[in-house]
């Protein structure tokens, strides 16, 4: 199954809770099933996005790190 990433959120440099709060805000404008790519540098965001996706039911499809940048792909429930 392929997932189309509708948009990319550049949240690099932002600290807790902004990566989650801004991602949730962006998701409000997406339709169910659409996906968003999030780029962040907050090390806490790795566990935070996993916890948040578990709480909300939005699916965390990818969680990777490239250097200091964390990349998450989230599909809206």
């Amino acid at each position, binding site marked *: 199954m392929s997932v189309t990433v509708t948009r990319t959120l550049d949240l690099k440099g932002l600290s807790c*809770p902004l990566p*989650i709060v801004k991602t*949730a805000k962006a998701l409000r404008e997406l339709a169910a099933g659409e996906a968003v790519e999030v780029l962040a540098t907050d090390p806490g965001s790795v566990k935070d996005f996993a916890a948040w996706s578990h709480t909300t039911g939005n699916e965390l499809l*990818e*969680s990777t790190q*490239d250097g200091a940048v964390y990349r998450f792909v989230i599909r809206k429930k």
Partner: protein
Amino acid sequence: MTTTFELPRTETPPEPKKTGSFTIIAWSGDLDKIWPTLILATTAAASGRPTSIFFTFWGLFALVRNDRGITGTSWMQKMLAFMNRGGIANVKLSKMHFAGMGKAMMMSLAKKYNVASPQELLELAQDAGVRLIPCQMTMDMMGLKREDLIAGIEEPVGAATVIALAEGDTTLFI
């Protein structure tokens, strides 16, 4: 190099664990308590939980408009507002405030590390649909009128409404 973090392997996405309401009773007017209150509230709302903050006693001063100056009608209420200036921009640290110098340093650290200020978080909370509820009794006693408080908040209520809100999943007193 790309590192992949292990994701929970399930056939279907797990059901959301908890989506019940999240209520904070914001009693303290200290910067270092109002700040985490707003961080938790914005995150709870971002996690899909119906979120409310009840601002009472010292906490209510965080809902006063920054430009309001001295509030109240009696000399005691005015003295109180003079000693404890209202507005989210005017909240003080509970320790190491040092007449504002400590706070200035804290805010400069926050800016350096891209931490949202209480002012920004209050706006984000409103944007995310967090219910901001002022305490009627505190307003009466401290001489705060509806027009002294920021726009976009709920009607003032009393303790019984908070008890009803506290029937939700999480209730914190900060």
